[in-house]
């Protein structure tokens, strides 16, 4: 056993050793996401910036793809993190899991290099297979899709076989069932059709049923385990809450898919179904806030890992406001007719992905670093605590500034471009040139710089937190 505070892989179990690999790549891709977001944001203000070299379409694609992949890496890492602890046995097929990690990482590097260096192809099937599928969020070429499916299947095998060999807790059961859905739904996106209505119909199966259903349940599992670890909440309580969340999440989110079926050629009955069920989608998020805040208060905020708990609480609120409130604001067709495809959507997208997912993955980064350093003390009066607190503050201030700025631009756009001008070419550019829109884009950029500063501080903190600590982790029975 090495000294407390020193990074040593011997402090980790098998699954956790793999988890920290996933986390390392995740943080690097998080940085890439921010970098390309800043470039794309600058192009709104200075359209000639990198024109013809790294066009907006390329920067934006890397921005959103880096996000999807780093969150996925974060989730995979988080599941490997809790797997042995939850199931009570070593990960089954860990060698295969390691191999899948390297294949996945290599595939991501190749895909990004092709995005940056090749960028576009000819209008043939070969471009879709080798360069870029050209469908938002799932641009990865088809060969990479197949690679992703294989890696996710290995991951699923690791999780399911480990729980089957050890014990199936409530968290483990929900997790395995959720992963089946998560992997299966991805297949709906691996498909070409000239019919754009059909294309977008199935494309939403992947996008919506990932981010508004299966990913939400996955973070529900992560929150349940996180609350047990940081606060010592009784398993029976978190697992009952988890079932409530699953019932409400899938009960609203599966048919909530209909709110993407208003304007793509799909039948009118989706107005009613999509509007009604998506309006219910915030309810499980309220349940998560109540759950997390109640537990934290019940345990008088005495946690084993203050940064992780802070990010878990941030997740509860961020998920509710970003996904719940911001989504609800424009989910009914009567308003969505004017907001669909404007900066409203971007505002909601930024806040929701950050609030619901980024926060939870960061919480797991902190759980991981604590154990990696031998189970150091990370509760109150932590040495250098200003860093994690300021990282949390800057990331939130930056994100809120971006969200509000884009929302105001979106208000202007929905009025001028959509309602008055009817979305014509002239209407679009009239709205884009309006001072209220331009100011929104300027403030968004400032928010982006603040967010980037928060990221740098977060990365620095994760590298240094607990390094000089000599106290062991606080006991939950204290």
């Amino acid at each position, binding site marked *: 056993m090495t000294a407390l505070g020193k990074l040593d892989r011997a402090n980790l179990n098998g699954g956790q050793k793999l988890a920290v690999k996933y986390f390392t790549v995740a943080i690097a891709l998080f940085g890439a996401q921010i970098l390309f977001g800043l470039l794309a944001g600058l192009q709104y203000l200075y359209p000639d910036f990198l024109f013809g070299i790294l066009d907006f379409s390329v920067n934006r694609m890397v921005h959103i793809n880096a996000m999807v992949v780093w969150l996925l890496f974060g989730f995979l890492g988080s599941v490997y993190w809790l797997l042995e602890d939850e199931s009570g046995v070593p990960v089954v097929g860990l060698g295969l899991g390691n191999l899948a990690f390297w294949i996945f990482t290599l595939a991501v590097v190749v895909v990004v290099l092709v995005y940056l260096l090749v960028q576009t192809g000819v209008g043939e099937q070969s471009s879709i297979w080798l360069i870029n599928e050209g469908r938002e969020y799932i641009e990865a070429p088809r060969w990479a899709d197949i690679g992703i499916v294989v890696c996710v299947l290995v991951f699923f095998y690791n999780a399911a076989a480990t729980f089957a060999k050890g014990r199936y807790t409530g968290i483990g059961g929900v997790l395995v069932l959720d992963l089946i859905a998560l992997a299966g739904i991805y297949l709906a996106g691996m498909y070409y059709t000239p019919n754009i209505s059909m294309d977008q119909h199935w494309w939403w199966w992947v996008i919506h049923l990932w981010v508004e259903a299966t990913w939400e349940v996955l973070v529900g599992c992560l929150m349940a385990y996180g609350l047990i670890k940081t606060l010592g909440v009784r398993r029976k309580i978190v697992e*009952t809450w988890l079932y*409530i969340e699953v019932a409400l999440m*899938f009960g609203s989110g599966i048919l909530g898919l209909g709110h993407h079926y208003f*304007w*793509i050629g799909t039948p009118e009955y989706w107005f009613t179904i999509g509007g009604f069920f998506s309006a219910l989608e915030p309810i499980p998020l309220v349940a998560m806030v109540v759950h997390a805040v109640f537990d934290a208060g019940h345990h008088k905020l005495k946690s084993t890992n203050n940064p992780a708990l802070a990010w878990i609480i941030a997740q509860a609120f961020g998920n509710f406001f970003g996904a719940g409130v911001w989504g609800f604001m424009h989910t009914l067709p009567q308003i969505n007719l004017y907001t669909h*495809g404007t900066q409203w959507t971007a505002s909601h997208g930024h806040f929701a992905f950050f609030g619901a997912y980024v926060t939870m993955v960061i919480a797991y980064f902190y759980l991981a670093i604590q154990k990696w350093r031998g189970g150091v003390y990370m509760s109150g009066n932590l040495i250098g605590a200003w860093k994690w607190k300021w990282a949390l503050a800057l990331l939130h201030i930056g994100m809120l500034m971006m969200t509000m700025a884009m929302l105001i631009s979106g208000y202007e756009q929905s009025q001028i471009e959509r309602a008055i001008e009817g979305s014509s070419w002239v209407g679009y550019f009239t709205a884009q040139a309006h001072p209220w829109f331009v100011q929104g884009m300027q403030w968004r950029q400032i928010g982006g710089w603040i967010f980037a500063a928060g990221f740098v501080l977060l990365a620095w903190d994760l590298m240094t937190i607990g390094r000089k600590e000599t106290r062991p982790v606080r006991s939950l029975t204290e």
Partner: protein
Amino acid sequence: MSQDIWWASESFWRKNAIWITAGSFIVLIFLTFDTVDQITAGGKRVPAYSAINHRISYVFDEKRNFQVPVIGVEEPLFGKKLTEQEAAALVSHGKLTTQAKNCMNCHTLLGNGAYYAPDLTKSWLDPSWGSKEVREQQMVEFLMNPQDRLHNGLGRRMPNLGITEPEARATVAFLKWMSSIDTNGFPANFKPIDQEN
């Protein structure tokens, strides 16, 4: 203790989670069959690809209370009437071009995509193309050489994506066909190009 109350018990909510998820999924599957049937090309909502042989307009429908696409008189694209098969191949080539050129990461199509450039749902009907007589050629020329054509006060331009003439013509076919899809009145209040003789 709370575990004695049936509505707060773990088993009650576990059963609920399973039944509600399964029930929602079954309803979704049922609706998906109907929706897929309704959006298959050749139906009322999503017309056959040979719609590009006709004039497509976007007019207000009193009964539905929003604008709907109407397939009108014969007006073949590039003056050449195509069979259903030829039209499908051309539209497909156009769709593949929009994917390979990553159009969706600047533009929106049916309102989905990125917000750096105009929505393309009704681009075929946009009054900015001038008159319907020059529209097709204008669109082809623009797609092939957009980088020097400043068309807004912002200085925002479309980059040259190396689109060949056949790709540009196919893209125009795809855009024309897309404008014929019944999108439940999206975009609202759109003022289309004058297509009357």
